């Protein structure tokens, strides 16, 4: 039962680095919800930081995958993303449609090119 045990560490991470820093904002939002203006300048900046950070998470999974996905060539991963975005815009701005198009490309690419 040591902190360096990676499995125990994962559970601690979920509660201390996941639950607490997430729900603190949910709870704070409830307490302040009457005074909060969604268009305030600070929130626009904060939302931009969060969006860029999340984009970084996405790009890291695509560009530097950790697991088995690394065996799929980079150009297929990028083609899948491009096809998904194109599918989204061409098919009624449907997230589901874009996801399906991207999946066809990544799965097909993985079958033929890895």
């Amino acid at each position: 039962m040591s902190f360096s045990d990676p499995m125990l560490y994962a559970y601690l991470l979920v509660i201390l680095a996941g639950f607490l820093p997430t729900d603190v904002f949910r709870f704070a939002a409830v307490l302040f919800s009457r005074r909060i203006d969604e268009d305030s300048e600070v929130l626009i900046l904060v939302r931009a930081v969060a969006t860029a950070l999340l984009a970084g998470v996405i790009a890291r999974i695509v560009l530097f995958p950790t697991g088995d996905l690394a065996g799929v060539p980079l150009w297929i991963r990028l083609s899948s993303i491009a096809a998904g975005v194109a599918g989204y815009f061409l098919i009624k701005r449907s997230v589901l449609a874009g996801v399906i198009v991207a999946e066809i490309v990544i799965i097909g690419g993985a079958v033929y090119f890895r």
Partner: protein
Amino acid sequence: MSEPANTGATPPIEPPRVWFWRGVRAGVMSVQGLVLFAGFIGFGGLIRDIGFPLGAALLSTIFVWALPAQLLIVGGFAAGSPAPVIALAVGLSSVRFFPIVASIMPMIRGKSGLGTQLFASHFVAVSAWVESIRLVPALPVYARMPFFLGLSNYFLWGSVVTTVIGYLLAGTLPQALANGLVFLTPISFLLQLIRNSRDLVDWLALVLGLALTPVFAQFGGSFDLLWIGAIGGGAAYVIGRRLRARA
């Protein structure tokens, strides 16, 4: 028809239980729910790929209930990032719940007490928010909280089940399909970020965040995500404001 109040006849007050299950039914009918579950199937596949324990992942779906934050946790775990750095990154990504919760709570709270509102706020995530904003205004005020809890609980527990399904599938599927499952997470998130981008600042933040990743992955160390967020988001805000002021 759309203004029953004008008829003078008050519709019968139905118990919260009835509205809870109507919320569940709205969730079952929701395309947004399908995309959400697909994302969690991908999450289940991703954690198996990374070697993150399933129990901790399920705990994260229940107690964190924010796929971006959950990705930061398992991604940080895989990269060996220090826990305080992960907590900071999670906090930064979860700041977005502040306006989301603050904007939905006045719509759904009705006459519920502070405790109920705090409890309900945990179930607010992007999917439940999108569907609630769309569906709740047509409901009587007293019905909104139970309806929201039904909808969002269906989303949350459905995501717990699909996390497990994704985890199990990742072990048995052909390699190409497993790759496809892992890929569901980045593509569904990217498309949802695109859909949520309303003004120039949002778009710039998205594009800069993507573009800065290969740069900071080289020399950003364990803080690379924070640099991407701070520099990409900060630049997006400044540039977006400048261009809007000029226009």
